[in-house]
């Protein structure tokens, strides 16, 4: 048998009908994650056609995008941004009840951002196919699952048949050699990678991240890297499962138990690209060269080490992006005054991210005039963080500690920045208006976000980490 890539192994194991010149493959889906924004029209379609769910037991829903991050008032009323947002949430509750889908709603101790709770519950496992009506489904690739975002029509396909019509993607190996320097993290790495290969560098491909620097990452960090694969245009990102993966999954509510665990791990160990497997493309990245990295334009490919000068615009679109951001060519982003700092989103809202931010903030204060929002990714993260007292570190520093949700990552729940404000954000998209009309987004790591909050300007977190350690 010829050598296979990890992607090919997972793909092959899920082909119900192979692709032909005229027809795409029918691909079986192991886990379907659902949220309130991209599912209502799909449920309506099922209702109109008189269909039921093919596998409600492989479908998991949560509320995250339109949900308020301020707590309910004394009467239990939640401060929704609009009546429509509330109606959308109610609609998902109704749909889940009617179609028998397990929903992690307001009353669930596990509610949270869809890409945070899947792994947390152990529902995300190596070798699975996972889809969601959400492009950051690529996050789950950190476990060696083939995970990708789909549109609402396809959400309907999966609800009704547990399958999708798919053409096989090409493969792109990104080898990250060496080790990341101290104080430089996964977010810096992935921004650096997108800066290198471009926002369309992965189009049509599934990326497999490999190499020593990837193997050294924790699961949380791997999720941060895979999460941003879509920002390079890739269908999905993958990392081969290893001991780090197994240790992280063991004992989670939905992970296999007992003898089944051993059988699962034995299978998971086979999920790596074979020696001699051929990728359609390969790219090499030197981890040692990565520095604290931020974006300076209006897409994630416009990323650069914060101490390096912003490059000149190469065309009218880049010029417009720089003008929108008020970024000055020839000047570094470091030192740019900051109005808002957001720590959260499926990219960076897990416990380790909050610890990273807290490490910088402990004993310090958010600069005068800067608003800082910390939004945990899930109820579980919130509980764990509060158990460690991280929330007190944040509130003592003057930051707001919120209820889990997508919040200012997508700014559709009322958490948003004002026109012209500069936001240092740990989320994944710096598109024009993404965090509020006219808002200027600078993507960064949690450590950079926290350091910038303290300095009131975009700041190198390494300076703050050394002080904290001393």
């Amino acid at each position, binding site marked *: 048998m010829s050598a296979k890539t990890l992607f090919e192994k997972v793909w092959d194991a899920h082909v119900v009908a192979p692709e032909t010149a005229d027809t795409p493959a029918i691909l079986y889906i192991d886990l379907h994650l659902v949220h309130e*924004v991209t599912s209502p029209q799909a449920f309506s379609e099922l209702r109109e056609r008189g269909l039921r769910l093919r596998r409600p037991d492989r479908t998991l829903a949560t509320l995250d995008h339109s949900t308020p991050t301020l707590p309910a008032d004394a009467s239990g009323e939640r401060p929704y*941004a609009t009546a429509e947002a509330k109606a959308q949430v109610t609609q998902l509750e109704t749909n889940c009840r*009617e179609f028998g889908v397990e929903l992690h709603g307001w009353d669930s101790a596990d509610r949270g951002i869809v890409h945070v709770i899947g792994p947390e519950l152990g529902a995300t496992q190596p070798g699975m196919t996972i889809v969601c009506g*959400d492009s950051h489904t690529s996050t789950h690739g950190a476990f060696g699952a083939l995970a990708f975002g789909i549109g609402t029509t396809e959400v309907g*396909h999966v609800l009704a048949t*547990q399958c999708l019509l798919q053409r096989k993607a090409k493969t792109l190996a990104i080898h990250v050699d060496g080790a990341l320097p101290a104080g430089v993290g996964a977010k810096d790495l992935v921004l650096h990678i997108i800066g290198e290969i471009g*926002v369309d560098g992965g189009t049509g491909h599934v990326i497999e991240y490999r190499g020593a620097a990837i193997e050294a990452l924790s699961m949380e960090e791997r999720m941060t890297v895979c999460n941003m694969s879509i920002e390079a245009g890739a269908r999905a990102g993958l990392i081969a499962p290893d001991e780090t993966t197994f240790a992280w999954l063991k004992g989670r509510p939905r992970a296999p138990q007992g003898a089944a665990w051993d059988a699962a791990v034995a299978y998971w160990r086979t999920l790596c690209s074979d020696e001699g497997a051929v990728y359609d493309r390969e790219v090499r990245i030197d981890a040692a060269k990565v520095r604290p990295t931020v974006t300076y334009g209006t897409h994630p490919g416009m990323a650069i080490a914060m101490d390096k000068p912003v490059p000149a615009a190469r065309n009218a679109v880049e010029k*417009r992006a720089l003008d929108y951001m008020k970024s000055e060519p020839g000047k570094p982003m470091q030192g740019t005054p900051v109005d808002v700092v957001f720590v959260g989103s499926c990219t960076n809202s897990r416990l380790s991210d909050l610890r990273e931010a807290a490490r910088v903030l402990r004993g310090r204060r958010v600069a005068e005039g800067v608003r800082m929002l910390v939004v945990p990714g899930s109820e579980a993260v919130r509980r764990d963080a509060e158990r460690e007292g991280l929330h007190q570190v944040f509130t003592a520093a003057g930051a707001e500690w919120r209820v889990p949700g997508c919040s200012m990552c997508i700014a559709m729940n009322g958490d948003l920045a004002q026109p012209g404000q500069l936001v240092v954000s740990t989320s994944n998209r710096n598109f*024009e208006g993404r965090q509020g009309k006219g808002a200027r987004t600078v993507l960064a790591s949690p450590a950079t976000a926290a350091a910038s909050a303290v300095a009131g300007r975009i700041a190198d977190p390494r300076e703050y980490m050394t002080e904290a350690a001393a």
Partner: protein
Amino acid sequence: MKPITRIHSRTAVLADENIDTDRIIPARFLTTTERAGLGKLCFNDWRYQADGSDNPAFPLNQPQARGCAILVAGRNFGCGSSREHAPWALLDYGIQAVLCSEIADIFRNNALKNGLLAIVLDEAEHRWLLEHPGIELTIDVREQYIALPDGGRIRFQLEPFARHCLLNGVDQLGYLQQHGDLIDAFIREREDREAAIHGRTPQQDQSRLAGVTP
């Protein structure tokens, strides 16, 4: 879906590269539970001024761009969020085809499933079209060419299944359902393996869902 064989229209041009789906329809409008009526929100933050009037700087607000059903867009159109609201909004706005040298995967997929022609062209042809807004084109889906006013033709390739579905108005969910037996057989076989691999039997799955009946 209605079959689509030909589209005839003048072109409108949005030359910016990397026009993301947040720009096509901003996230704050995604609280809708419908797919209809999104055309008025299409390109909202680009198209209107603060007072709600039309932004004269938005290329599609130019008189000659009004009513154009073919959009020539800068490279990597539709990147970012997977929201299908983007093709819904474009279609409702009146766009029936997007021509581009590169179109983001999820957007292209979503577009074709809704009968919005997402057509990828060579860079040279794409550049030429970007430089010649307002020309009359006929897109022939069956023969896969674009007819130029001077009689010239630009060839393109659609994924064969997508083309078949467009031409015949095939309902893809219906197509999947026709393979129901195959899918059932796959699931039965897989459930046995899943019990070993993922450590849970179908019965356990059922009991986990006890009390929730569809």
